[in-house]
């Protein structure tokens, strides 16, 4: 079976996309990697991306036909300095040119926008699913919704787990950035 190797900027982002993909493609085998360090972030991802990719390609479990996907937030509203994003883009393009089967998922503006447009999450939070890709801080919006409806915080591990239990995996109906990511998966023949 083909596997998808996700390289994410942090663990919470990895958890979100894994829940989405598992709902959509239950048989897909997923491995994930994070940048080294106690608090991985976009800068560490930019600095370590080449190593992370090299490590995946050297992994005994990696098979030709497997896909690698790099996932991070667009952060256009919070991160005026685009150097890390540009570095990631150039590493991705270099690997693509070198023939590596690699995808680049960019969640606008944060991966939580994919949850704000998810029908299962919205049903549980009593909201209408729609596009939030242009919003400045989807994480804060989700935090507010969760607090209003269930008196929980998305920023807490248990609050996040609770949200993820309700994921339907269909946020791409409304979220253009998620749609683009899912289309890459199909175009890259990463799913059977």
């Amino acid at each position, binding site marked *: 079976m083909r596997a998808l190797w996700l390289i994410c900027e942090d663990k919470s982002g990895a958890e979100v996309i894994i829940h989405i993909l598992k709902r959509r493609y239950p048989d897909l085998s997923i491995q994930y*990697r994070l940048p*080294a360090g106690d608090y991985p972030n976009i800068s560490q991802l930019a600095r370590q991306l080449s190593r992370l990719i090299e490590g995946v390609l050297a992994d005994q479990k990696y098979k030709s036909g497997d896909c690698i996907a790099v996932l991070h937030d667009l952060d256009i509203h919070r991160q005026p300095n685009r150097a890390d994003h540009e570095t990631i883009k150039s590493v991705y393009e270099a690997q693509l040119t070198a023939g590596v089967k690699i995808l680049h998922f960019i969640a606008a503006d944060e991966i939580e926008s994919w949850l704000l447009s998810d029908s299962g999450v919205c049903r549980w939070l009593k909201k209408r699913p729609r596009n939030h890709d242009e919003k400045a801080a989807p994480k804060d919006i989700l935090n507010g919704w969760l607090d209003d409806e269930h008196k929980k915080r998305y920023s807490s591990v248990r609050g996040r787990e609770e949200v993820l239990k309700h994921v339907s995996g269909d946020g791409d109906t409304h979220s253009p950035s998620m749609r683009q990511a899912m289309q890459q998966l199909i175009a890259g023949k990463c799913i059977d």
Partner: protein
Amino acid sequence: MLTRLHFKNWRSLKDVTIDNLMPLTVFIGANASGKTNIIEALRFERDSLQYGLVNVVQDRDYTTIQTDAMQKAGTVTLSFSYQLKEISPLPLIDETSLRFQKQNFPFFNSSRLTEGNDILDVVPETRLPIRAEISVRNTEFVDIEHQRRSHEVEAYLNNWILKRWQILGEGFQTPLRTSQIGDVYVMQPDAQNTLHILNFMRDVYPEIFTELQDVFTWLMSHTTAVEVSTELNKLELSIQERGGQPGATISAGTLRVLAMLTAIHALDMPQEYRGVNQSKVFTSSSPGLVIIEEPDTALNPGLLSKFVSLLRDYTSDPEKPRQFIMTTHNPSFLSLFQPEEVRVVSRDDDGYTKVEPIPSHIKEVWLDEYGLGEVWSTRSFGGLPD
């Protein structure tokens, strides 16, 4: 030196081989991955020699010895391979099998001891506890020379395990005071006899005690001396701090370091044992094995680096061959080891423990700039919780 472990149906280890054990080997893994089950196998081996196999099985309960899948009826096998030049230039393999029915007793035990390709001794499956009418043990070999060699190797090996293995289990701690009865050579897994060993060492082998004290005060640089006194039939620990003041309170980390160093230096004390026909002596130059569960608990990361450099000094001393087997959860501690010294313990899809080396590419891809503990957090090898 212990070179290889093989377990079948032992607790969560259904069929696991761990080879190429190093002078320093550290097992890493998530909680309940099976690290302690590996250490437990070593304890079982030593305890069955010390207290007798029947008592040890009774104490542990057969349901905790074998894997869940084997609870109906199966064979548990523990195999230990050694390279012990004092007794043989060839590898020695000591294998024990236990077969349970649906209860602790009776169970069936068989064993095999080999030296290189030579099978020294095979004990066919025997019902334990032994019934009176079959109380004579049958061995398959009657050749006298073979039997002599078998007894010689067996005597050495059994004594070596009993007297030269220091095992410190989870949560070990030097007590501040204790009664006067306790073993003075071999550390209890909970370290409750640390003061007995120290007291004996100071009285009988003061030069070893002085060396231990030097190492301890170097490692714990706020201290200047360790003292053990006798008070109302109890042994009492005191530690002098810099400035000549007695330590008002002794920290948990300090007490654990003292236990670990005591276990290590106790191996320097000569210890007599009974060979086949004569008494023999283990000396400081005899090999020693020190097994420590989570040595890093309660230790500052800065101290860990000094501690591991000290362990490296011990393992590199050709006059005192020492081997250390440890477990840890701590990335800072892990970063102090080479990849070949580490084994990753995790559960497979069926819930059984698997033990793997660090993938070979990790060194090349990461270790020029990152420590092994940092790389652990990338999930490039196992041993982390989901």
